[in-house]
């Protein structure tokens, strides 16, 4: 868990990013990590608080969130009050991009994650109730379009989620909890991002998307096991594009034209291009200039296509083309290893 801080004296930048902005990122995985890097590298955010969340020891989670709350009140709210003589506007954004459970998760796994999420919502409730008037909060939650709409094709914005596995059920329950939670608030801005299949930086020893795994194994001439078929269709979106979408969501959260009441949006984070595993394989082989090895574990459930209809991109942020995206991941890897 980390908090990034941005205090901008630059009036031009202040017009796009609110002058005093704190971003609390819970979960620095593929999406959270990309958001952190994007904010630091593009908008010059600074680390303000960085503590490892004890996800494995569930007894410590509650205490961890309490520590975070104390820190936010003491180091952000109180110090801003004294140092800046109560600014007219301080934006505090929360991003939930945590979650260990994947498509193979069991009901026991998702129960654990639901408890963590419940603790997080409790934290939000407490901060919301006790925050000074100059603080405006927003929440950005990463959900899973794949989990919610597994096996469905031509999914539209108004399609009804119909999860087939515990992971999708978890995401649906979390979305419902946020919706219920936000209904009691007089002032709240939140965005639920239903993400398609996310890929991004090759991160050794950590969870990566299929594309990054194929690239890593391709670079090391190792076999990639795939639970699906060559023709299985998915929508692959680069984690940096998701970071851009979330950043745009944060920027637009408290614009003057926004309604002062609570405002929860559900948006799809997609690339809008269905891609088969065969196409990914061809692109990777083109970039690596050699064949890659694949082993298929055919499980009918994972071979289902998940495709989307015409859906507007969140905040007009267009995702990059899959060819550029794969090249970006590779360029990033070469940059770190040469």
């Amino acid at each position, binding site marked *: 868990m980390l908090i990034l801080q941005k205090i901008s004296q630059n009036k031009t930048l202040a017009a796009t990013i609110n002058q005093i902005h704190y971003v609390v990122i819970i979960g620095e995985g593929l999406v959270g990590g990309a958001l952190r890097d994007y904010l630091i590298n593009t908008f010059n955010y600074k680390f303000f608080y960085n503590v490892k969340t004890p996800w494995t020891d569930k007894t410590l989670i509650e205490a961890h969130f309490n520590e975070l709350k104390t820190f936010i009140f003491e180091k952000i709210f109180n110090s801003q009050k004294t140092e800046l003589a109560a600014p007219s506007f301080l934006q505090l954004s929360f991003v939930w991009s945590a979650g260990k459970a994947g498509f193979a998760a069991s009901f026991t796994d998702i129960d654990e994650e639901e408890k963590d999420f419940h603790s997080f919502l409790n934290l939000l409730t407490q901060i919301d109730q006790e925050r000074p008037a100059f603080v405006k909060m927003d929440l950005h939650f990463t959900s899973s379009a794949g989990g919610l709409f597994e096996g469905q094709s031509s999914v539209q914005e108004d399609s009804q989620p119909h999860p087939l596995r515990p992971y999708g059920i978890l995401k649906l329950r979390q979305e419902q909890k946020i919706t219920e939670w936000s209904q009691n608030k007089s002032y709240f801005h939140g965005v639920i991002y239903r993400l398609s299949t996310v890929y991004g930086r090759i991160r050794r020893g950590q969870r990566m998307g299929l594309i990054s795994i194929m690239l890593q194994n391709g670079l090391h001439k190792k076999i990639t096991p795939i639970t699906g078929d060559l023709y299985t*269709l998915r929508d692959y979106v680069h984690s940096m594009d998701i970071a851009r979408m979330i950043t745009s969501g944060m920027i637009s959260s408290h614009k003057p034209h926004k309604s002062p009441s609570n405002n929860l949006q559900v948006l799809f984070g997609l690339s809008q291009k269905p891609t088969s595993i*065969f*196409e990914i394989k*061809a692109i990777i082989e083109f970039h690596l200039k050699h064949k890659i090895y694949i082993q298929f574990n055919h499980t009918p459930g994972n071979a289902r296509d998940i495709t989307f209809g015409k859906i507007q991109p969140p905040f007009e942020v267009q995702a990059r083309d899959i060819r550029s995206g794969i090249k970006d991941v590779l360029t990033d890897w070469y940059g770190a290893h040469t």
Partner: protein
Amino acid sequence: MEGTLSVSTITPVYCGAQYLEELIKQLERVRQEWQSKNYPIQIVESIFVVDAAKDDSLAILKTISNNKAYPWIKVIELSKNFGQHPATMCGVLYSTGDWLITLDEDLQHHPREFIELFKAFAASSYDVVYAKPKDSVHQSLFRDWGSRGYKKLIAKITKNPFVIDFNSFRLIRGSIARAAASVCGHETYFDVAICWFTNKITTQKLSLEDQRYINTGTSSYNLFSLLSHARRLIVSSQTKILRLGAWIGIASILLSVALGLHFLYLKIYDPEAIPVRGWTSLYLTLLFMGGLTSTLLSIIIEYLSSISLQNQGKPLFFMVDRSSDALIQKFLNHEPIDH
């Protein structure tokens, strides 16, 4: 809908402004008809790839696409004019359908014929069905003869019998079309790439008329673009005819050796039978070296061809799932369908 197969249509657009509204109307009519009759195949999207159109096509398509009544119309705008095949391949790579139908912008390929393509597929679980004109397409003997003649010539050169059937109005299994489009380079001929993935290819005779050519005498293709097509067809194919060069070379070498032995025999036992000295050895040396050069050149061409095909992405293998074909076959054979 559970138990239905999705169909995407793909139309590359270059100068179809006067036909597009009517084409979309016809597509909508077929789409509605299939929906109302509960067909097990449904058109889920119509993708229009605007290939730097030289008329108002883009504006027309954008207006229709922005209309909420047409959520199934998708418009892709290419950055420059890449040509019909790259535009088709782009549409294929953006498609989601279990089956894809590619058709031209000018209503030469009428949406009412879609079901006829499926009827041909249903005969034997084909992967590709090409429309074959019943009658003259251009109503011009020269134009039709030219088109058929050059396809036959290319089929002979490349030894690919399907070349004769290639047509831009085609029904293709989605997985195979997307795989073929994935491996295509800028010089790869899309239909040749499809042949790398399947030989379950058939044709369906349909009434096709190039209204644009009949009415105006002009076509979106000129002689240079047709020559360019022919060139790409050859470059994408393994030119097996060049193997003939190797056989001619080997035959020349064998002939030169046999003649050499024959004239050696004559030189020893009947020297008077060779009236002019020197010509024999010169002739045999030329025959031998010419044969050797021809054979070696053929081997080099074979190597280059193999490298070129690998570079273009010809696959080692590809898997296909035809398990849902029975659904369409049952429907087209008027058998009850278990939804």
